[in-house]
């Protein structure tokens, strides 16, 4: 068995840890706004769209090195389609996510059949592998991290107001449409990046579980964001290390760590409340 100290000597592990930390921070920060606006399922929807987009990109013949980058525009466009659909009074947000995500999966399945069934490349995206992160994806993660942190700091008041109450935000002169577009586009990018960490099947876990855990501990809006990012980063680091040491799939291990944190904190809170 490889020792703990030895792990960090491998360049691909260093890359995985760095990318994992950046993607965990991105997803968990955006997740706070999504969970509080009851848009948790958007992660699942965008992940399904990512499946279709990756199938398109692979069929076109993009090198696996650039699949993540090439899939981005399609996922971003789809996120805007979700937003557009929700404008119709008779289509609720969850239904809009359902329509677009079904299209994503359907397109993925059809295109996979063109290339002779579920080929290895497409399946690898379904379950993800953070240890295969390449330099392009690491650079993309770093750029997106800077953009997300910058956006949250610059638009903090607007994001807070829109999350609290969209109508109230509008009455304060906040361009809520612009804020919604920014949030959805960043979430689309986060979903594509998170695909590499946990796989398409578990993308929403990175967006939903850390914010939910943070909400159990929160004592202000700012601390909720910070706690969410801290829990997510800690889970990703532990998940990568343990998966490497125990030869387990990284994506699943990361999600199990996230769920374990949630259960421990949720349970401890319940016990404390019961004892009072």
């Amino acid at each position, binding site marked *: 068995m490889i020792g703990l100290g030895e792990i960090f000597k491998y360049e691909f592990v260093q890359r995985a840890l760095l990318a994992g930390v950046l993607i965990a921070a991105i997803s968990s920060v955006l997740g706070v706004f999504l969970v509080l*606006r009851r848009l948790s399922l958007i992660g699942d929807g965008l992940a399904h769209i990512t499946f279709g987009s990756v199938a398109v990109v692979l069929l076109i013949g993009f090198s696996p090195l650039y699949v993540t980058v090439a899939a981005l525009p399609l996922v971003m466009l789809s996120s805007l389609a979700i937003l557009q659909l929700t404008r119709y009074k008779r289509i609720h947000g969850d239904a809009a996510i359902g329509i677009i995500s079904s299209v994503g999966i359907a397109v993925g399945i059809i295109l996979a059949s063109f290339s002779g069934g579920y080929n290895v490349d497409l399946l690898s995206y379904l379950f993800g592998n953070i240890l295969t992160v390449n330099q392009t994806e690491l650079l993309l993660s770093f750029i997106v991290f800077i953009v997300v942190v910058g956006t949250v700091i610059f638009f903090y008041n607007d994001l807070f107001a829109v999350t609290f109450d969209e*109508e109230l935000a*509008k*009455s*304060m*002169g906040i361009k809520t449409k612009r804020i919604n577009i920014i949030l959805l586009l960043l979430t689309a990018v986060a979903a594509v990046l998170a695909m590499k960490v946990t796989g398409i099947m578990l993308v929403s876990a990175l967006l939903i579980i850390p914010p939910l855990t943070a*909400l159990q501990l*929160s*004592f202000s809006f700012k*601390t909720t964001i910070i706690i969410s990012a801290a829990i997510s980063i800690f889970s990703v680091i532990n998940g990568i290390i343990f998966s490497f040491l125990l030869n387990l799939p990284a994506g699943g291990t990361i999600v199990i760590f996230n769920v374990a944190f949630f259960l421990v904190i949720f349970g401890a809170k319940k016990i404390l409340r019961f004892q009072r």
Partner: protein
Amino acid sequence: MSINLISTENLTFCFNGLEVLSNISFAVKKGDYVGIVGPNGSGKSTLVKNILGILQPQKGSISLFGQPLSSFREWNKIGYLPQKLNALNTYFPGKVEEIVQLGLRNKNAQNLEQVLQLMGIKHLSSRLIGELSYGEQQRVMLAHALVNRPELLVFDEPTTALDPETRDIFYSLTEELNRAHGTTIILITHDIGVIGKYARNFLYLDKKVIFAGTFEDFCTSPDMTGLFGPMSQHIICHQHDALESNP
């Protein structure tokens, strides 16, 4: 001559093909205290949401502080208390202080302290809004509307969850803001007695403007006697007169 802070011309708003507001034209002058009354579904909240740019009318024009709504940017001059907060849930992690501060555009910490004190919520400033009672949440939202010391305050049924004491404090405060500081106030309420006591002008709405004008006009209008009945009209006018003669 005082300027119009709000004016609407032939404002029409439809929802799902049904006309909710029909050709609404009215104006609110600077320093006025206007009450908006009308039955459920009469379009009171919809009118205010159109004025504040929350909803888009299908027809007509709106101007705020003399500027068309589309080019209006001085939102810090307006404080708004909505009828109900859509997103407010019991696990929203915003502190009272954070929420009140959200309305503070000039970042004047002194304003924040004063308004927390004024609304009697200073001791709650570190609590999460979701943990508070509905009445306390309402006071937080009042503080949010007031913190920026706006020139125009819009209240949509502001006292539904307040106890009688806090309700009286609230109305006295609106009266003081209006009389001493010249703050223009728009108040939507079902309590016509309150309108009679505090507002100088009022608008009776039922998808269209049924009555708009001063209390003097209202009290002498035979049409309004027909609408409200002589007793109600008398009570409203009496309350208003008592306040005018004993401010």
